[in-house]
């Protein structure tokens, strides 16, 4: 795992040095995908394009969470949550359920994977908290519901993003999200931010917010804060690139997504 991470950072660092600029990771992976599309290894590539299933185009950033690792080292999840909260200036309302702002948090298996069978759960599943965050759906209901395009899907990498300055606070997206991933600033959050990170904006009252897959860190060639903090329990990358680390994990392991029957196609996968 450590090796993968080093490789990831190396490529990201190199591209930053090359002066490609802000969305380094994006361009980098796009380059790979482009090259793969241009030079099919043999005739099968072209044939598959004509008759086979649709080949996904573009970049789709996703996350695979290995619950085996988190079960063995539960403190990793706490570390990841703390890292997320600090990086994104998330206010702490001291467990007040009404006001709480959550980007990445933990909940039981029954709460997170509500449509999976739980007649008999393994001890590991019963005793382990699962990470919950925005699924960055391929077909996001929140984006469909938003009346101002304040939440939208980034075409370049599939991230479902927010514009806090356009949001009118109607909370239609919160009703639309089947994953409970969105939080609303019921009051001014700033007095409740414990430690300011000057590199990320705070929010004002009356707007919705949620996990952004650390777009701001990706732009600098860094991994998402939670991925970095939990030391290999989470793999992050482009699932449309067959050679990416995450594709290899997905090819190898059986993964599940939250509420797949709703047709949202989440980009967060769990290995249980």
């Amino acid at each position, binding site marked *: 795992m450590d090796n993968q991470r080093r490789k990831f950072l190396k490529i990201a660092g190199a591209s930053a040095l090359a002066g490609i600029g802000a969305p380094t990771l994006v361009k980098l992976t796009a380059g790979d995908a482009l090259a793969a599309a241009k030079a099919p290894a043999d005739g099968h590539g072209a044939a598959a394009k004509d008759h086979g299933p649709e080949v996904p185009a573009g970049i789709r950033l996703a996350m695979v969470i290995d619950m085996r690792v988190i079960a063995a080292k539960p403190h990793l999840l706490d570390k990841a949550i703390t890292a997320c909260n600090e990086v994104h200036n998330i206010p702490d309302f001291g467990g007040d359920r009404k006001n709480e702002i959550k980007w990445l948090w933990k909940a039981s298996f029954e709460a997170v994977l*509500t449509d999976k069978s739980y007649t008999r759960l393994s001890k590991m599943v019963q005793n382990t908290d699962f990470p919950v965050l925005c699924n960055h759906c391929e077909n996001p*209901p929140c984006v469909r519901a938003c009346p101002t395009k304040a939440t939208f899907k980034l075409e370049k990498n599939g991230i479902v993003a927010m514009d806090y300055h356009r949001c*009118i*606070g109607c909370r239609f997206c919160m009703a639309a999200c089947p*994953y409970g991933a969105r939080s609303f600033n019921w*009051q*001014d959050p700033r007095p409740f931010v414990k430690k300011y990170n000057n590199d990320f904006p705070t929010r004002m009252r009356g707007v919705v917010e949620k996990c952004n897959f650390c777009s701001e860190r990706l732009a600098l060639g860094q991994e998402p804060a939670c991925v970095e903090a939990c030391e290999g329990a989470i793999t992050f990358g482009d699932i449309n690139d067959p050679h990416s680390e995450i594709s290899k994990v997905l090819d190898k392991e059986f993964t599940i997504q939250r509420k797949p029957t709703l047709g949202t196609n989440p980009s967060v996968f769990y290995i249980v």
Partner: protein
Amino acid sequence: MIEKTLKGKPAYWIWLAFLGMFMAVGAVCYARQYLFGLGMTGMSRDVSWGLYISQFTFLVGVAAGGVMLVLPYYIHNFKVFGRITILGEFLAIAAIVMCLLFIMADLGQPLRALNVVLHPTPNSMLFYDMIVLNGYLFLNILCGWVILTAERKQVKPPKWIYFFVYLSIPFAVSIHTVTAMLYCGLPGRHFWLSAIIAPRFLASAFAAGPALIVLISLILKRVANFDAGKEAVNKLVTIMIYSAMLNLFFIGLEFFVGYYSGVPGHKHALQYLFFGLEHHGHVYNNLVPFMWTSIIFMIGSIAMLATPAIRKGNEFILGLACLMLFTGLWIDKGLGFVFAGFIPNPLHEITEYIPTANELGVTIGIWATGFFILTLLYKIAVSVEHEIEE
């Protein structure tokens, strides 16, 4: 015609002052909410819509209910409704104004409301709701005003107005259909994800709107010497009975689907509303007494209205039945429907919603504003009627 609102009996002014008092309370409560944020309400991360959106939903129905007067009168030439069709149109205006105020009260950033227009988003149902609500408001102001003016001058209304009158009929249906679509197109909210929501909304609207109009015409008969006519009232009561029964039928269908299929997602919200939902050893049942009151009121009022001896003999009982029906439908749609959609939340946890005093203040203030506008509009309509009679 606006000058008609400036002359009235003391009771008229006392009534307006009474409403004005609640409007002032509402304004103060809203100022508090505006300065602090929506944290002044009982809404939470889990129940992210509350009283404001539920009142909005119910009042869209009241506005759409006005079409039950417009349609028989203009399409079927049902002359009996001639005197009271204007009441339906003016009720729609007041109800839509309340709807828009409730939407504004519910926004976290009300000053950005125009973003809905500046960044039009055709994939959002709220975009269409904005169009049809404002369109319906405009149509009712236009039609009501032009026709009343013509009536006052005792001439036939201009022919072009009928285009807008006929247009207002599909608009009435559309406002409640689109409002239903705000809910029934959301994946993962099982209680709302039902194709029967729009028909059910329309059925309850066509009962609630006329119920309020009958109630008001009974009051107008006493305080303003304005008689809607027995035949018109009887016809409205028939419409109410059928619509309210359809609404109950649709609720029954929801119960059948949930409890016969046994699919938990289809049962949870109904269980929460009517029997209480158990979760981790605690039973959540805040709304149970309200929902049974609603059912009793709806069935009771239908029984009262459908018994000719009871209904025709006594205006007090007729008024009581209308009030019961209106209240029953208000609990059904104006409380239960919206709140229960958030139970349980997407992680199958339960957070109950209890509105705060400040939130109730804003809500009452907006209702008072609506009735203030309604009073002024009805004053104009009734004064014009009296002027013609003289």
